[in-house]
């Protein structure tokens, strides 16, 4: 096992909610059952709770430059001073107990559990999804390390021949400050929101990527490869810079249920696409049903650049995530493709932000959500076209599918347009699965569950096709799983 002080995989105590997603979500916070065991080595543990000492500790372990410590301490102040955004967001946020969270665990304090302790339904899910044995143990938290180091080194070697830098946040800031310092915290300022401030104070892990001018990275870079290094953190920080004319695709997450034991995940992802560059960022989020997933993602697209977020949210108790693009240069293009599936006890509060800041910029948002059982999905969007711009266009489509009588969906877009030389259109619809369609499929010998699953897959098919093949196959299987028992 390769160990370094600055890498960590944060896996904290397990919860019952993960094992049984139908129970009251609030009781899912209870951390008493199925606990991981911690090795007691306080020297490398920041403990629970957040204070200036926690931040100094993290920065010290990572041997960071003084400016980063300053940055973190300032962010901590901002985090503490900002109120919870419950005047517009769900009150469920108030259930986060910041004092009980472990903000940093270094290598060596990894929690452990045996395969026998992993709940049966999680094992069954792995089976159904066809996850390799080795990965299953890692994903279930049995092994804190999944040895993909070799795979990561391979891809890293491969792309470094093209001059691509692909490192973690600590290494990025330490080894390549001349490249990353310029954009770090510039796309998403610390004070953007309470949780971006929190991340800025305690971030660790994540990927820092730089693609030199004109370089087109053929294979997608995956956080998946880097799992054992640092990427499974709660507070990961990602910064991707595509220089002029460069192209890169990045993928994070995997469709297997991450049997996470920490209740708060708050990442910050910044993308910078310089002139003519193209960045595609793909996320498949499937945290266990006790996790608060509060993520800030934003990209800046310069002239002729193109940023595309493909965002799929299936897991977590509450996700609040609105990937955005600031269209800063002429003819820049921003896109968000979003799929959300909310089952019992889940609230997927997702959406998109498009800030037009130059002429002839275009943006496109397509969001589809599915609410199952008592699940709640929310679309929240922002489109802003300020004065004196011309030729800007936005298109937004959101469709919601409600499976059960008590499922819930909300749509809250906010669109501001100035001037007569731009055009914006927004459309949304809410519907249920067509009964005739189900009836027809049942006529042909499918069970109601199979028919429902087919209908739901059909609903998101045009979006799912935009995912890389292996992801869309897993997505299909996952929807089959979620739809089981949702009817009848």
């Amino acid at each position: 096992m390769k160990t370094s002080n600055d890498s960590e995989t944060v896996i904290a105590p397990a919860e019952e909610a993960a094992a049984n997603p139908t129970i009251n979500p609030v009781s899912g916070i209870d951390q008493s059952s199925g606990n991981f065991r911690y090795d007691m080595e306080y020297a490398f543990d920041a403990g629970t709770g957040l204070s200036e000492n926690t931040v100094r500790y993290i920065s010290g372990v990572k041997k960071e430059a003084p400016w980063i410590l300053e940055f973190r301490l300032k962010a901590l102040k901002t985090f503490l001073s900002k109120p919870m955004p419950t005047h517009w967001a769900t009150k469920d946020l108030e259930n986060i107990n910041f004092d009980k969270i472990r903000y940093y665990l270094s290598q060596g304090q990894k929690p452990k559990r045996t395969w026998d302790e992993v709940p049966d339904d999680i094992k069954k899910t792995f089976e159904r999804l066809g996850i390799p044995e080795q990965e299953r143990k890692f994903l279930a938290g049995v092994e804190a390390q999944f040895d993909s180091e070799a795979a990561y080194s391979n891809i890293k070697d491969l792309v470094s021949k093209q001059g691509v830098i692909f490192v973690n946040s600590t290494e990025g800031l330490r080894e390549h400050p001349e490249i990353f310092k310029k954009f770090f915290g510039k796309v998403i300022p610390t004070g953007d929101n309470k949780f971006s401030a929190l991340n800025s104070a305690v971030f660790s892990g994540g990927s820092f990527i730089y693609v030199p001018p004109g370089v087109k990275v053929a294979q997608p870079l995956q956080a998946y490869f880097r799992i054992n290094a640092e990427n499974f953190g709660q507070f990961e920080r990602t910064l991707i810079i595509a220089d002029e004319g460069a192209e890169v695709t990045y993928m994070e997450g995997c469709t297997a249920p991450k049997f996470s034991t920490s209740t708060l995940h708050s990442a910050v992802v910044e993308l910078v696409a310089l002139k003519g560059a193209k960045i595609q960022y793909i996320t498949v989020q499937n945290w266990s049903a006790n996790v608060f997933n509060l993520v800030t993602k934003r990209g800046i697209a310069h002239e002729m650049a193109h940023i595309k977020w493909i965002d799929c949210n299936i897991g977590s108790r509450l996700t609040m995530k609105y990937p955005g693009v600031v269209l800063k240069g002429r003819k820049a293009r921003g896109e968000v493709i979003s799929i959300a599936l909310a089952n019992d006890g889940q609230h997927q509060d997702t959406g998109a932000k498009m800030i037009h800041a130059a002429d002839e910029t275009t943006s496109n948002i397509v969001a589809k959500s599915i609410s199952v059982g008592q699940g709640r999905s929310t679309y929240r969007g922002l489109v802003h076209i300020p004065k004196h711009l011309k030729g800007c266009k936005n298109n937004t489509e959101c469709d919601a599918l409600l499976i059960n009588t008590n499922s819930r969906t909300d749509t809250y877009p906010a669109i501001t347009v100035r001037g007569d030389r731009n055009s914006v259109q927004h459309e949304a619809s809410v519907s249920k699965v067509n009964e005739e369609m189900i009836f027809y499929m049942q006529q042909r010998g499918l069970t109601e569950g199979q028919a429902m699953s087919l209908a739901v897959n059909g609903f998101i098919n045009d979006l799912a096709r935009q995912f890389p093949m292996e992801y869309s196959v897993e997505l299909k299987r996952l929807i089959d799983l979620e739809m089981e028992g949702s009817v009848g």
Partner: protein
Amino acid sequence: MSAPTLTSATDSFVGSFTAEAFARHLAALSSSPAWWLERRRAAYETFASLPLPRRTDESWRFSNVAALTLEGFQVEPAVPAGLFLASPFGPAHLAFVNNQLVAPPSLPREAIERGVVVTTLAEAALTHPDLLRGHFMAQPQKLGSAKYAALHSAFVSDGAFIYIPRGVELATPILVTHAAAGPDAAVFPHTLVIAEENAKATVVDFFVSADASTHFACGANDLYAGHGAQLTYIAAQNWSGTSRSFQFNSTVVRRDARVQSLNLHLGGRQARHESLSQLQAPGAFSEMLALTVADGTQEFDQRTLQIHQAPNTKSDLLYKNALRDQARTIFSGLIVVDPDAQKTDAYQSNRNLMLSEEAEASSLPGLEIQANDVRCTHGATSSRIDPEQEFYLLSRGIGKTAADEMLTFGFFEEVLNRLASDPLHDVLRGLIQTQFKK
């Protein structure tokens, strides 16, 4: 930092509408029944205790809250003598100037014989106390203006009371005019319409400034459609260009009833309109229409809420804004489908026609759906005149100004065509054209 004294804090909350002004107002209403006086007192307390809207209030998002003020208004403006107000809709059956009835109610014989009541609120308090008590400002304020609605409830002194008995169908519309006159006059127009089972009627409210001075209008209308009733309500607002206006609409639709409302917004420097439709029983249908012509530096702020409380109900909203100069419009709409309101059919659409480089339109079309067997859609668009259509007209030898005008009126016709009555359609079109040509 020195804390503001209690008095100054209170002053900023109530502006000209002080406790003393309220006491004087109550003293003048000695003939009012005890329950109403009590409601007014409670409303005043609510008004005084609530803070002014803040920039961070979700229900005031995008509004210029800094420009909202309650200072400098005449709480009980005198009624100028010999004022004659012509309404484009024709002679009014009820005409109010500065909250007072200026001529006795006139009503067609047909209506009187069939038991239709068209009178003032003050009169209704004596003749129909139970109806007034049950329907006057009886619905919740859910759209952000609780403070201003309480101000209205506290200071309203009179208004229109219209009652259409069971089964009565009125062929001609009932016309009401509410005017403000004189510098800084504050008016509290109110129109209450109760349509009983299977009744059918059209009511028109016309709001106007008698002169170019600055007015403060804080009005409300309560519409109630009983089982199977069919009610058409039209409100045209043309306050002076420096006025501030708040208007609160509440529509209650019962089983198989249908309410169509159309609001035309033309005047005011800053005008906010809140409209709440409650679909309370199966078969209820509410059609909510609005047209706005915004120019200069006007701000029109429209907030709507369609609540489907029962299965098999329908609502259809279409709000169209034409924006010129540096005008701003805000549309914030929400469709709520309660958990058991299956088979709901709800529609919400906001269309903004951008006619200048500096106009600004914000749309917040929202949905909150808690039942699955529904058909709910909404849409919002903001764009300029279709260049292809314009090109077609230009190629036929029509000048650019005329072509734009034709296309703009075409934009409004979609809404006006929903009206069954041609004469009303013509009056509204005339009002819009006047606005464009001024």
